[in-house]
């Protein structure tokens, strides 16, 4: 192990040490000065971004490099996903501070646990061996289990945490089981070695296929696609909003990376086998997510089902197993993270002191109470529905093209029909904001940093749509070597 290799993981080391520093600083910090923790966390993200950019994988032409005996990989896909994790987490911290203060939960454990979750996300993004994948995954899961139950008084939160813990452990177990079979079939833990072994010995090994099935289950659980979606609505609803924000965005970025590394880098030769499973899950997710969301009156549950359908679209991008498809999928998942953060940020904004905005009715007449934020929520909703010029549209047409590339025209047609059905519940929210009279005249007030972050978030969703070229190119170029 030499220094240059350690340097590859510099952003991870930085986040790890800062998480520990924050934990220590908190011990000596009087309660009224806890705002400092927030500043430290934001600084952590900014510097993590700078360190990542210094690596030159994005523009410098370096394809990829590995460290720790090949179990850690640094490449431009990973760097892009990490950078967007930092951006998203920065937004999440800003929204959460307001929420946690309002709900008397402003404690530094939130920041420590989230930063450890971020570390897990980063490790999973860069994982190139079975062990590293499992390590990253568990680091995310353990942080999130604790975070879901962060509000100790809430019985709903404890129930959700318990449910998530049981189901999550089962999924981890399945994944581990699948990994052990793959290890048994190929005799190695590194994804690159596994790929070599499979191409040497052929892909007709029953043990290998069995392993693949269990691995796909693990990935699907992380994405939350049908039929492994049961936990999503309950956990979204039970967790405090600040935590829902985190669960709904960052782990999805990591899940995409995990799917790519596992299915393409490791098990690329089994494409025909996993494509069949993924296409069914994609279709079911898009169908069930959109249909079930129509029935919801609780905003968190509605967004949960909307997540399920979006993850179905992300899976569609994986189907052709081509550079275009992965690029489309990655673009979609990044865009989704931004949209979902903005949507939950808006819900936080509407949560009055001590009471979470739970019901769609809370959006009634928002246009009259605050036209600016109503416009931002409008942009987010149209983007989720896939209406141009919002960025969500560009993500959608690309994954639809990916499905057509894979020869699955029927899936593309089904997906667009269900996205029209899905447009209904996004429109319904806009109806509440614009067409209905407000139920009460409470003025919507938010701190300056919160407002700035939300505006930035909304502008990104519109701006990345109109000027979509750069982000699309970055995503596509990440897979140029494929």
């Amino acid at each position, binding site marked *: 192990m030499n220094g240059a290799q350690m340097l590859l993981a510099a952003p991870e080391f930085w986040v790890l040490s800062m998480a520990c520093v924050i934990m220590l600083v908190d011990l000596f910090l009087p309660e009224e000065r806890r705002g400092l923790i927030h500043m430290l966390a934001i600084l952590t993200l900014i510097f993590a971004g700078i360190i990542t950019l210094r690596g030159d994988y994005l523009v410098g032409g370096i394809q990829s490099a590995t460290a720790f005996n090949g179990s850690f990989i640094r490449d431009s896909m990973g760097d892009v996903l990490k950078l967007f994790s930092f951006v998203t987490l920065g937004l999440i911290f800003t929204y959460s501070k307001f929420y946690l203060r309002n709900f008397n939960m402003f404690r530094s454990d939130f920041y420590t646990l989230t930063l450890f979750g971020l570390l897990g996300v980063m490790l999973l993004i860069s994982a190139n061996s079975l062990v590293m994948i499992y390590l990253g995954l568990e680091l995310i899961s353990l942080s999130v289990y604790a975070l879901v139950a962060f509000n100790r008084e809430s019985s709903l939160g404890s129930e959700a945490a318990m449910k998530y813990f049981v189901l999550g452990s089962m999924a981890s177990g399945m994944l581990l089981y699948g990994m052990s079979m793959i290890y048994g079939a190929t005799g190695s833990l590194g994804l690159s070695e596994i790929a070599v072994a499979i191409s040497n010995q052929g892909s007709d090994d029953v043990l290998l296929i069995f392993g693949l099935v269990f691995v796909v289950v693990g990935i699907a659980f992380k994405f939350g696609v049908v039929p492994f979606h049961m936990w999503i609505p309950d956990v979204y609803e039970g967790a405090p909003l600040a935590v829902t924000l985190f669960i709904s965005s960052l782990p999805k970025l990591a899940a995409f990376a995990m799917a790519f590394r596992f299915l393409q880098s490791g098990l690329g030769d089994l494409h025909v086998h996993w494509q069949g499973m993924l296409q069914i899950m994609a279709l079911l997710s898009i169908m069930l997510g959109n249909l079930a969301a129509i029935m919801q009156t609780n905003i968190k549950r509605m967004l949960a089902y909307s997540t399920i359908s979006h993850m179905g679209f992300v899976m569609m991008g994986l189907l052709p197993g081509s550079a275009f498809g992965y690029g489309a999928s990655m673009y979609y998942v990044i865009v989704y993270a931004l949209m979902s953060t903005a949507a939950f940020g808006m819900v936080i904004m509407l949560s009055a002191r001590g009471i979470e905005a739970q019901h769609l009715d809370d959006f009634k007449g928002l246009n009259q109470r605050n036209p600016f934020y109503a416009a931002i929520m409008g942009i987010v909703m149209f983007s989720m529905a896939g*209406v*141009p010029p919002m960025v969500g549209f560009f993500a959608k047409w690309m994954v639809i*093209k990916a499905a*057509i590339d894979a020869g699955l025209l029927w899936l593309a047609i089904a997906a*667009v029909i269900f996205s029209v059905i899905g*447009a209904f519940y996004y*429109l*319904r929210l806009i109806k509440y904001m614009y067409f209905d009279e407000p139920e009460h005249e409470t003025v919507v007030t938010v701190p300056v940093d919160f407002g700035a972050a939300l505006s930035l978030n909304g502008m990104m969703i519109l701006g990345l749509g109109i000027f979509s070229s750069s982000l699309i190119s970055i995503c596509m170029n990440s897979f140029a070597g494929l």
Partner: protein
Amino acid sequence: MNGNMNTFLLSILIWLPILGSVAVMLVGAQRPGMAKGLALVISAATFVLGLPLFFSFDTSTAAMQFVEQRPWIEIFNIQYYLGVDGFSSPLILLTLFFGVLVVISSWRSIDKNVNQYMAAFLAMEGLMIGVFCALDGLLFYVFFEAMLIPMFLIIGIWGGPRRVYATIKFFLYTFLGSVFMLIGLIYLYIESGSWNILVWHDLLLGYTAQKWLFLGFLAAFAVKIPMFPVHTWLPDAHVEAPTGGSVILAAIMLKIGGYGFIRFSLPITPDASAALDWLVIGLSLIAIVYIGFVALAQQDMKKLIAYSSIAHMGFVTLGLFIAFGIYRNTGSVSGAALGVEGAMVQMISHGFISGALFLTVGVLYDRVHSRMIKDYGGVANTMPWFAFFAVLFLMANSGLPGTSGFVGEFMVILASFQANFWFAFLAGLTLILGAAYSLWLVKRVIFGAVANREVQNLQDINAREAFVLGTLAVAILALGLWPQPLVDMLHASVDHLLHHIVQSKVI
């Protein structure tokens, strides 16, 4: 006009209203007067800037003019590619014209969130111009869909009692139609490696592929124009929309469906269009005859005009698709040109007439707050000037010679004789039906004895309303008496289109 200005002209026409709408929005709801003034200045400036589309338009060529081409999403060869020909230029001028009129006509009738109302109209104007200019498939789709957002909000916020139902129906109908087109566009991109619509015009495709593409385009444009049986969103949307929304919907948005047939269906999938022309012609004739009867039965003035719009749009689709039959019968494209030109003239003329009719109803609605025919009667006694305009517009709607309504219908009926006598016969029925529902409306609303106190107390139109209706009356008469400038604009492009569609594009 120097060449440099011409390169950016279309961009200015698109972005000036869109950026202007942001400015109007920022004025805030507390200063409605300023919002209205700013909106008027922006739309008038856009109109003036757009005049070169008429005066500097080269009528001798079918090539794209005022072209602007730059990369947008380079990695997929998607371009920001704008240009106009004889089909799009008149439609853009129509849009610019109504952009100004709508602002003026809504001056008094809107009192809630005036800044947002004006901003929505400006944004919609820019987006609709974008639809007509876009020569890149994805750019076209972006404008085509984005246009729904302001209209959705206009109907939903400022509409009538059933506005939520009407606007969600409007949105989902059009959205569902256009996603099938999106799949078609993606397929064309996969086949050609380009999003350039003009490249697609020369693309050779298999017959089956053409047929599916044709159906995809049909789904989008039939809903938009709208054709029977996917027309049901239109009466609802019209009835619930505020006057300005109805005007834009009828005058411009429906034309986008007809424009889409001209830009996509006919030249890209000519063989499928020829093979399936019976479908479109059949539906058009049903629209003309059946919807004409439906219009006769309406109690609500806006609904009556909405159904009359559907019947008139039937002429547009009929005129476009009889071209194939005429070519089969006569072997020459000059006969077919009459039908296509007639369809285009009908689109422009219907834009003026339907816009004028909705504004006329709006004038009454502002005073009485009812659209029901039974609430009126003898309006001519208290509003003589208004009655003059209303009768003129309704006469034009029934196709009176001398008004623009006559020209397009006459050209299409004349052309359909060359395709099939029965097409012409059925289409000709509209002259009776149109006259019946229009004149009966005149009788019930305008003439007769004063029906009630409300009518007794009506004030005649003021100078602002007289300006709006007068301008439209001039336009309708001008186009009816001297359609030559419009036909000249069309001619080269129609010829070019017909030469495109009579050659097979099957691989």
